[in-house]
């Protein structure tokens, strides 16, 4: 039996693993493929924090910028916890080998959207990659146990307490028991399949697991759209390009928005241009080849590969895409979910530091900060688990999917879901579109429920795992749409065409497995 099982090997999961090992806990990290494939590696821009007292910046300014961006739905206490702890987190990362870019002998910091000072630390535009590998190297140093190629099928819940997980590993269904379980599985922007910057595996699985197990989700309607993804491939072009002075222009080379407003404002401006028949481009020609090669090397390469463009000479065609999810598994200030024994940290959790709209650079900070913080809040308890019964239950569920008959696959349903979500639960929403979408999803669910899988091998069965992940995506899509319908106001990233004002009182939305949306103020 483990003290702590961590599901997810990204920045939050690995930070928690290191902290847990330091506290002497018996810990293991479960990842669906390999640890360094985690979505954290894709983050380009940076990690916010006030590091130097003489910079003119302060944690209070960082707090107020964050709260302003969150449009009323931030929990000030948790924002303060994060911003005041940022310096220690950044210095800790430096001490364990993180190769931050430097300015003279200081950790360099650059400007990001809606920030009143330059406070985003970075590693060229590979910040996420180098953060993940630094944490990973330290996990190897501390001999942390990894359970690779392990797909979690369900959480084990007995006597209203989470006791671990049932997972598919090496072709076998296995129950893994622990005194506490931490979900660090990432966000759900990937359900906008085909219209998302996310990795293909980012289907919000942990959030679906939590919902099925009885935990509450909150603020699920708040999906952040990143204003600049490459038109042909949805590959992300980091905000740091705008932070460095890049412009957004249409085909007439007219600028139309303050490039460094918050992401929701910029996305709406870009999308409106596109809806009106314009094309939108990112212009970083004036930054020069030397600057681009030094500070944006990954972007330069990706733009060349996917658009055949040299960004120092030509305009880059961009379009908004689903990028991040502010909503997630509802947690209290101890990062505990509404299910005893279950904790959540990182993008899959809603600890209410981003509110209705996240600032660039705050996500990498969140995952490190709360990944570390959750460990001291764990309450460990032992209960006997009937592992055989749990494994049998999971095996039967899988067997119902298998059939020798040739079956059509779910892939077309996944593309349809992505397209409809982007159209009707995207940057601009309205009642008709959302109600229509609810019907679309019902229809997709009905068709999906009839499908079977003819590859009955349990080992290395990518089709099976993708099928199960799509089931999770459908579940989350339902919650997103219901929450978006219920919130009849516009706030942060959630924009209702027929309700463009923001209500005076800011309420969080809550959903559990009954799929009823309730609104509530935390106080």
């Amino acid at each position: 039996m483990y003290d702590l099982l961590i599901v997810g090997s990204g920045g939050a999961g690995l930070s928690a693993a290191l902290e847990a090992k330091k506290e002497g806990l018996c810990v293991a990290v479960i990842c669906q493929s390999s640890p360094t494939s985690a979505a954290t590696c894709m983050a380009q821009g940076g990690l916010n924090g006030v590091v130097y007292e003489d910079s003119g910046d302060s944690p209070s300014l960082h707090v107020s910028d964050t709260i302003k961006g969150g449009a009323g739905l931030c929990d000030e206490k948790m924002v303060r916890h994060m911003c005041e702890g940022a310096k220690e987190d950044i210095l800790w990362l430096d001490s364990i080998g993180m190769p931050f870019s430097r300015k003279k002998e200081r950790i360099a910091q650059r400007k990001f959207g809606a920030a009143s000072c330059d406070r985003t630390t970075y590693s060229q535009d590979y910040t996420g990659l180098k953060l993940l590998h630094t944490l990973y190297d330290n996990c190897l140093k501390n001999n942390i146990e990894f359970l690779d190629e392990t797909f979690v099928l369900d959480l084990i819940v007995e006597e209203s307490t989470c006791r671990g997980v049932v997972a598919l590993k090496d072709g076998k269904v296995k129950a893994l028991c622990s005194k506490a379980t931490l979900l660090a599985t990432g966000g759900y922007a990937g359900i906008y399949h085909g219209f998302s910057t996310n990795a293909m595996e980012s289907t919000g699985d942990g959030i679906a697991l939590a919902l099925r197990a009885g935990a509450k989700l909150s603020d699920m309607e708040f999906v952040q759209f990143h204003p600049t993804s490459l038109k042909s491939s949805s590959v992300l072009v980091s905000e740091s390009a705008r932070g460095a002075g890049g412009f957004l222009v249409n085909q007439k080379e007219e600028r139309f928005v303050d490039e460094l407003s918050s992401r929701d404002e910029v996305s709406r401006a870009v999308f409106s241009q596109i809806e009106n028949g314009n094309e939108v481009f990112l212009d970083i020609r004036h930054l020069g080849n030397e600057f681009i090669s030094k500070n944006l090397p990954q972007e330069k390469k990706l733009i060349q590969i996917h658009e055949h463009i040299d960004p120092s000479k030509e305009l880059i065609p961009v379009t908004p895409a689903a990028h991040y999810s502010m909503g997630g598994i509802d947690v209290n200030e101890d990062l505990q979910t509404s299910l005893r024994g279950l904790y959540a940290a990182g993008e899959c959790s809603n600890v209410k530091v981003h509110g209705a709209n996240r600032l660039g650079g705050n996500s990498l900070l969140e995952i490190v900060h709360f990944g570390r913080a959750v460990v001291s809040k764990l309450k460990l308890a032992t209960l006997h688990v009937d592992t055989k019964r749990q494994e049998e239950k999971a095996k039967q569920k899988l067997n119902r999917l298998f059939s020798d008959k040739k079956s059509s696959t779910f892939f077309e349903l996944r593309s349809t879901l992505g397209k409809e979500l982007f159209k009707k639960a995207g940057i601009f929403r309205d009642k008709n579109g959302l109600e229509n979408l609810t019907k679309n999803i019902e229809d997709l669910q009905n068709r999906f429920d009839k499908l079977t899988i003819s590859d009955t091998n349990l080992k290395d069965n990518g089709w099976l795992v993708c099928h199960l992940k799509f089931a999770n995506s459908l579940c989350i899509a339902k919650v997103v749409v219901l929450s978006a319908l219920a919130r009849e106001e516009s706030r942060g990233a959630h924009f209702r065409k027929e309700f463009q004002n923001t209500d005076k009182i800011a309420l969080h939305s809550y959903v559990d497995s009954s799929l009823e949306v309730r609104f509530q103020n935390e106080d």
Partner: protein
Amino acid sequence: MKIEIQNRTYELPSHEQTLLSALVYIRENIDPTLKFNYNCKSGACGSCALRVNNQETLSCEYKVKDGDKIEPLLHKTDVKNRLKKVESWLHVESLKPMGEASEQKIEQQSDCILCSSCFSACPVLYVKPDFLGPYALTRVWRYIADIREKDKHGFIERVQKEGIWDCTLCGECTLACPAGIDPKADILHLRTKSMQAGYFDPAPPQEFQDDFGFNPNF
């Protein structure tokens, strides 16, 4: 266009696409049992490396062409075990601050995404499967060159056996690397550092002037 995957030919639409898009197309329209790894589709996760016409590449970056032959990577091995063998992490924190110049020394090596392309390309692994291999040695150099690492000598010790002296300096790893890293150069750096520390090639070539029967310069 047509591509061949493990003796089976697949017909693809003719527009420009990455190999990953092609594999996804095949899985979604022709064969859902096709097994391939992927995640980020932007060259950062290291999971999609494959061999195309015997050359290692990331499937999310390679644009597929008519007649391409796709195969898995060679010499598959456990990345974790290799890295644990060389202990590629910061051991002892020196209190030297890192500045711009010292950060640039490790910038390229820390771009490594652990895709194992270099490992697949390395010919030494055919005859010596325990050879530490390019990515492990690049990672060792990344830490030795890190101004914050105090215990450089420990690293040097760990790469003497089945390590830097077993490299043939063929450069295939450098050609294979999708992140623009030069493991051959890193291995040469390690050799220089080793000699500075008093180590040397345990099996130097016997005859320096051997022309192998065909060298026109001798």
